[in-house]
């Protein structure tokens, strides 16, 4: 296909703003698939994605579209992950496109992540086609949403399309706009190959399948290629594209989007963002800056039954074949046994990994409270990173402590500003900017506002998102991006059960919150630890200073009273059962703690 007749684009949309429905409609109206052939929403292929209404892995579909000018165009629709955890993958997808369809739900308006992605698209110089979706709904508010689009993004009503992905209204006009407004790819066919990897997955027959955009040159089956950042070399086993079915071809030309089968064993060997070039005739410079996926959020994953560790280990290995951003290191806890300390891109990524391990591998797992990575400079000059609070050195040995911060952007109706600002303040957030979006329609309370904050990532990891949603009655949307490390003034809060320090319960907290967090934890322990035959003091301490304490009173009564007509066997069986339960208890010093109690404290979100 003539390079001039290729259009590479993606759809930027918030969750539930109708991206997948529109994608299906585009596929259907270009005749790539008939409606009855499509399982609803072809592009969301993973079961989990469909259930959560989000798209996790980007894929690309080639559509042949004959425009009103009689010319047939080759449209490559590249799907983008919709969640902030995958913002790096989104940026690579954007880098593979010349244009983007910005899809805004006309019953809702612009959401925080959408905005972040639009800004990112603008940075990549993409041609953006603003589109108001769901025009068929009676609750549509085109005027209000249009004014937001105008004020926030500067688009005119004339260049904004009004469509319904569901009914097909305006989809024909959208296809024409894609052809006429988005520029064709500008790469050089005669230059050495440069191809951008924007996604990959592992296939057990063909090895890693890399999704790519050929920027310069071309790729043929059998070519010897090299990843410019990692240096990995490979021979192309297969070349092709999706329509949405797999279609092998002999060659992918300049400007085209498709896949190659690499024969590689781990997706980490074909990293998203890296540039592929030819071994014989390599390009001088890669396409865009590549950075390896960096986990930001860490948590322990353990099997509920210690015996299942081997199964977990195998499952983890298989999952990592397909998920280059997941890191895992074996970890041993006296109370939980063998498990893994895992690194994730963010909380959603963590949830997805956890659910996939349980669902696809049939495991029952325990996930400990998530935490971040701290950079510590010790008094002897040594720099270390600490993930487990238990590994934090003594305060006297710490010269400098740093923690990751994020830039947070929240879009909310103005009536929730108060409670959200309060939440930010409680979370250690620093206010940066407030911007009113669009004109207020109807009451002033519905005026939407964007609030920008800087805050420690640590504060986002537990109840922040739920609080944001509950304080805004579900209306606020959130976007965040990593903003580097900043100095942290934090202390380690230790928990002592019957004078015994329990490493796993230690937390890193701001000093002013130590007492409150300590109180919550000791109270939780009091509720969860069954009474022992002696009084058990439970204390929270910072350094040597006790900040909270409660006592678990001694058990007073535990005796079987009646002997039912000489039924000694029954008595013995009840004692047996009790004894078995006792054997399963974990020991903290001489305090017997059921595993469930231990877990519930580990998971307590404060």
């Amino acid at each position, binding site marked *: 296909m003539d390079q001039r007749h290729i259009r590479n684009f993606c759809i930027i949309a918030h969750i539930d703003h109708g991206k997948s429905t529109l994608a299906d409609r585009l596929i259907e109206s270009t005749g790539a698939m008939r409606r009855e052939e499509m399982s609803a929403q072809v592009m969301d292929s993973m079961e989990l994605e469909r259930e959560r209404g989000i798209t996790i892995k980007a894929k690309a579909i080639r559509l042949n579209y004959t425009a009103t000018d009689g010319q047939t165009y080759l449209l490559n629709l590249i799907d983008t992950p919709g969640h902030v955890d995958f913002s790096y993958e989104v940026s690579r997808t954007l880098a593979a496109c010349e244009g983007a369809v910005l899809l805004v739900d006309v019953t809702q308006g612009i959401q925080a992540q959408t905005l972040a992605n639009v800004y990112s698209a603008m940075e990549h110089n993409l041609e953006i086609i603003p589109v108001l979706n769901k025009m068929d709904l009676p609750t549509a508010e085109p005027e209000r949403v249009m004014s937001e689009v105008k004020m926030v993004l500067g688009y005119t009503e004339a260049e904004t399309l009004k469509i319904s992905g569901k009914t097909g209204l305006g989809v024909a006009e959208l296809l024409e706009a894609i052809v006429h407004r988005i520029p064709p790819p500008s790469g050089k066919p005669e230059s050495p190959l440069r191809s951008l990897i924007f996604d990959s997955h592992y296939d057990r027959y063909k090895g890693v399948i890399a999704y790519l955009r050929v920027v310069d040159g071309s790729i043929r089956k059998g070519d010897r290629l090299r990843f410019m950042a990692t240096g990995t070399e490979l021979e192309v086993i297969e070349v092709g594209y999706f329509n949405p079915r797999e279609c092998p071809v002999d060659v992918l030309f300049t400007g085209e989007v498709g896949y190659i089968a690499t024969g590689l064993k781990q997706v980490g060997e074909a990293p998203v963002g890296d540039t592929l070039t030819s071994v014989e005739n390599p390009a001088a410079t890669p396409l865009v800056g590549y950075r390896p996926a960096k986990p930001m959020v860490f948590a322990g994953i353990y099997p509920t039954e210690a015996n299942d560790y081997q199964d977990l280990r195998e499952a983890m290995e298989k999952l990592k074949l397909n998920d280059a951003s997941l890191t895992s290191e074996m970890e041993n806890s006296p109370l939980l046994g063998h498990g893994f300390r895992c690194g994730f891109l963010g909380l959603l990524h963590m949830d997805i990994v956890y659910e996939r391990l349980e669902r696809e591998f049939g495991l029952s797992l325990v996930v400990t409270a998530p935490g971040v990575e701290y950079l510590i400079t010790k008094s002897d000059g040594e720099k270390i990173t600490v993930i487990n609070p238990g590994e934090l050195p003594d305060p006297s040995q710490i010269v400098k402590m740093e923690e990751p911060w994020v830039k947070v952007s929240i879009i909310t109706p103005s009536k929730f500003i108060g409670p959200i600002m309060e939440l930010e303040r409680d979370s250690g957030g620093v206010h940066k900017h407030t911007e009113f979006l669009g004109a207020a329609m109807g009451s002033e309370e519905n005026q939407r506002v964007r609030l920008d904050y800087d805050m420690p990532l640590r504060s986002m990891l537990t109840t922040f998102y739920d609080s944001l949603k509950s304080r805004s009655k579900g209306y606020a949307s959130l976007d965040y991006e990593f903003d580097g490390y900043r100095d942290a003034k934090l202390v380690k809060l230790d928990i002592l059960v019957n004078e015994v320090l329990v490493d796993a319960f230690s937390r890193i907290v701001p000093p002013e919150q130590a007492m409150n967090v300590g109180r919550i934890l000791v109270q939780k322990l009091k509720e969860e630890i069954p009474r022992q*035959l*002696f009084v058990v003091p439970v204390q929270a301490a910072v350094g040597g200073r006790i900040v909270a304490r409660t006592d678990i*009173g001694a*058990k*007073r*009564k*535990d*005796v*079987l*009273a*009646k*002997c*039912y*007509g*000489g*039924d*000694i*066997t029954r*008595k*013995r069986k009840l*004692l*047996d059962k*009790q*004894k078995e339960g*006792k054997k399963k208890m974990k020991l903290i010093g001489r305090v017997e703690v059921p595993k469930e109690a231990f877990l519930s404290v580990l998971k307590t979100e404060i």
Partner: protein
Amino acid sequence: MTELSLYIHIPFCRRRCAYCSFVSYAERETDIPAYTRALAEEIKLRCVDDAEIKTIYFGGGTPSLMPADSLKEIFKAIRTCYKIADGAEVTLEANPGTIDSGYLKTVRSLGVNRLSLGVQSLDDAELRLLGRIHTSSEARESTRQAKEAGFTNLSLDFIYGIPERSQVTWRNMLAEIVTLRVQHLSLYGLTLEEDTPMHERVERGEVPSPDPDAAASEYEMAEEVLQAAGYNQYEISNWSQPGFESRHNRVYWQRGPYLGLGAAAHSFLDNKRIANTSDLDIYISELSGGKLPPQTTEVISKVVALSEAIILGLRLNEGISAGDIQAHFGIDLHHRFAVEIADCSSLGLLEEKGGRLRLTPRGRLLGNEVFMRFLA
């Protein structure tokens, strides 16, 4: 001639009590005649040769639902097979609301010389909560009638740890209990058994769960009040005036032989623990055909026997003697269980007194913690 105790189970009740999980059938009283015949048949078929009966215990259920004629038939069957020892202890469990003076006099004349009345509480609200069929005044009246009928070995059952009971209610109740001047008292802690209406009500949040701390306080209060009134505690749940300990129950604790008769009855014979079928219909139909009903049998190994001897023996206030254990099992108690004994002693649950190992007062409330450690 060997000594033997008989336990006879009467699995009928007017109505199931809210807390009870024991085998008993409501609204099956029409089956009593057939059940009586079945019992008589079982007594005959299971006759232990050359045994003398030291104690007989009619337990339930509600044994006092048995008409005097039925009891007479059962006694006749027993006497056909066995010699009942002179001075044998013959107990009948009876529930207030099912008995009157005439009945009590008749059963006494049949040979019942000990009556155990299921009073459970002297508070009407509590009796309703427990789902008892009688009121507190009926209980008082039954107690009076039992004495009037000539029973000089009278026992009353009470329940402690009833939800929402105040300490004052219990103190007043104990004060009244000692004025009743009966020879024997059993105090059982309320246990929430699964599949009982009480359990369901607690699950639904209609009734608070029994509070173990409140139960412990009530127990301690009872120990104090009953001792002051001249009752000796001789077992975790039992108190008596001197000389009126239940000889039948002592057989259980001391692992003496007993033959259980009736549906769901349990026996301990020749180191076997045996349970009759708990199915009333199967029990009756098998025996009406002259066949013994199905049983489950567990042979007690030597290790289990040892832990039973310790666990059951420790229930008695007198505790166990290392000499007895040595004589029966050929093991040195203090050597074999050195760790357990030291552990329980340091926790204040066990004590050594007069060459015997026994539960401390605290240990009596935490008996399971001790027993578990000695379980094989």
